[in-house]
């Protein structure tokens, strides 16, 4: 924001405003949190209210390994953006790729779990209230992971082509905010579905 002095008022010496990308991402996260809150409230409200089985206690298995994958991807993306800030593009690309792999593993875990629930236990979204709320909440989160993976995957080829440098680090930061949010939501979803809702 380059200021041109007006004849009357001298511009303030140090005029700095927040980065618009970061503010916008913070707003988006704020809005998304409200959406997730509603789904979480619905899930908790309907715990134990299904009129028929299967129940969470019977069929759910805690996905510890895939949770570790997703949570550690927060660390890798954080380190990736720190490396980019210092101009170490190789380390950035490696960690960025690792983040995508970890996120992909998590989605693979979700796919395995859903497949097991559907084909072994016959639980679909229309089976009972548990099915409806479980697939909606976990599915909404999985949708956000997928959207995040798509965005990360757009950056990767750009990075390989040498187009992502230090000057893009703020934008990469904005993307990593989103990824951290997706991870944080998983902590909530995990707690609600696999700990409180059993």
């Amino acid at each position, binding site marked *: 924001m380059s200021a041109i002095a007006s004849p009357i*008022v*001298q511009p303030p010496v140090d005029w700095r405003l927040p980065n618009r990308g970061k503010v*916008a991402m913070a707003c988006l996260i704020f809005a998304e949190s409200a959406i997730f*809150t*509603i789904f979480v409230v619905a899930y908790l409200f309907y715990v134990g*209210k299904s009129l028929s089985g299967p129940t969470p206690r019977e069929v759910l298995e805690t996905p510890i390994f895939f949770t570790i994958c997703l949570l550690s991807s927060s660390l890798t993306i954080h380190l990736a953006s720190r490396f980019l800030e210092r101009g170490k593009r190789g380390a950035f690309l490696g960690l960025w790729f690792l983040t995508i792999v970890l996120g992909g593993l998590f989605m693979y875990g979700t796919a395995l779990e859903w497949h097991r629930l559907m084909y072994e236990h016959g639980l679909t979204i229309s089976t009972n209230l548990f099915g*409806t709320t479980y697939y909606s909440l976990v599915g909404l989160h999985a949708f956000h992971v997928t959207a995040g993976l798509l965005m990360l995957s757009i950056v990767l080829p750009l990075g390989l082509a040498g187009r992502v440098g230090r000057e893009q680090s703020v934008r990469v930061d904005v993307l990593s905010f989103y990824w951290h949010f997706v991870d944080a939501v998983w902590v909530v979803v995990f707690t609600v579905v696999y700990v409180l809702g059993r």
Partner: protein
Amino acid sequence: MSSDVMAIKTAGASGKPWVETLHEWVTTVDHKRLGILYILFALIFLVIGGIEATIMRIQLMRPHNDFVSPQVFNRMFTMHGTTMIFFVAMPVLFGFANFLVPLMIGARDMAFPRLNAFSFWLTALGGFLLYFSFVGGSGLYGAGNAPDVGWWAYAPLTSRAFSPGHSTDYWTIALLISGFGSIGTSINIIATILCMRCPGMTLGRMPLLAWLNLVMSGMVLLAITPLSAAQLMLMVDRYLGGHFFDTQAGGSATLWMHFFWIFGHPEVYVLIIPCFAFVSEIVPVFSRKPIFGYPVMVGATVCIAFVSLSVWAHHMFTIGMNSYANAFFTITTMAVGVPTGIKIFNWLGTMWGGKLIFKTPMLFCIGFLFQFLIAGLTGIMLSAAPFNWQLSGSYFVVAHFHYVIVGGILFALFAAFYYWYPKITGRMLNESLGKLHFWLFLIGFHMTFDVMHIPGILGMPRRIYTYEPGRGWNTLNLIITIGTFIQGIATSVFAANLIFSYFKGPRAGNDPWDAWTLEWSVSSPPPEYNFASIPTVASRRPLWDRKHPEDPDSRYD
């Protein structure tokens, strides 16, 4: 050939083929053009929603009337409510925010111009889909066309069993899509206000309009999203056989009510806060005094935003909550009256001892003040749970919230139109037609909505298709309907004024009202880049400083 001439004139450009002009408007990312598009879009829907209201009023004009069928009547009140909230009030307020916020904070555009265009076209698509339901709603079933489940669409009315065909799906998708548009625009407004202010424009020096739109946008992020989430759940229920609101499978219809009103009540404040913003800009200029109690106004607005997030269940007293919930929601609802009262006193304080100029914008603001006060008072009445049990679902409630929406929001909007029309088009609105519009609308409004409280107290339920004679409702309903027509005529005067003044109105110049905020420092209409050089400000009234270098506000900062 005449249509070519019209299109060119509408765009304010000459010598271009009309296709090019149209293309420019459709692909524009300029915040001023998008603001105008938002406003025109809303005005079209205002006419449609108004016609729907008139159809309802003709039907209720006398007992045992059969002007329309009961099915059509249900569609009319559903479409009227949905249209007026989502496709008139929201877009027109976003339109003004779009047009004014960058100009007022000394920016050249919004933070994300393309997101801005995308959000507008999402809203437009939502509006189109809602009305496409008249054509496509019956689907393969031949059952009903437009949505007829009421604007709050309570479960289980929206389940497949009671809403066959696609009408409810069009309603759901229209609101979901326009909701995403609203979220996009809100993010944009917040990012613009926080990140694009010109040098010296600290948060404490921002015009109140920018402050209040900042708060409004923050509320949209928290209020529209629960509705979006609830709409997603409804779609899961209707398309995937889910059971969120399916009482047969243990689901809860009450949960939908909570989710809807967690959106629904903050939404009222989302709509009224930008109107507070208009009044806070217009009243000082026509009182020739700076706004009274600027920091308190900001504080009260933030306070309203917080408290209004915890009042939603006052729409649900009659579902039978426990006494703790009733007491909680009664108290929080009454508490909202405190910061709102502070605002009313601040506007009065601004006018007190001022040199009042009764131009049309000021008249509408004064109308707003009185009517919003009365709307607030009936609101306090309805916030008391026992009183609410008696009158919930009656015409008293309809009268109350129309007092807020028409007497408050629409009056403030008309004020905004008269005040900023010169900036938007470069021409003044005709003052005589404006005064005629004001008085006609005032009379029509009071005939309709003052009287409407009485049949409510006498027990007339809302959404009723027709009624028996001999209950004492006949004359009252006739007066209400006559008032509606007077409002219709007044709105036609307004529309005629908008069109007539666009071509024949006197040139406005940069600053027709001798105002103090930055939008009046540029030409009318503003150039595409807004400011040739980015301004620098040192007080809340940068133009006052420029006009009075001997006694600038910045001296007292």
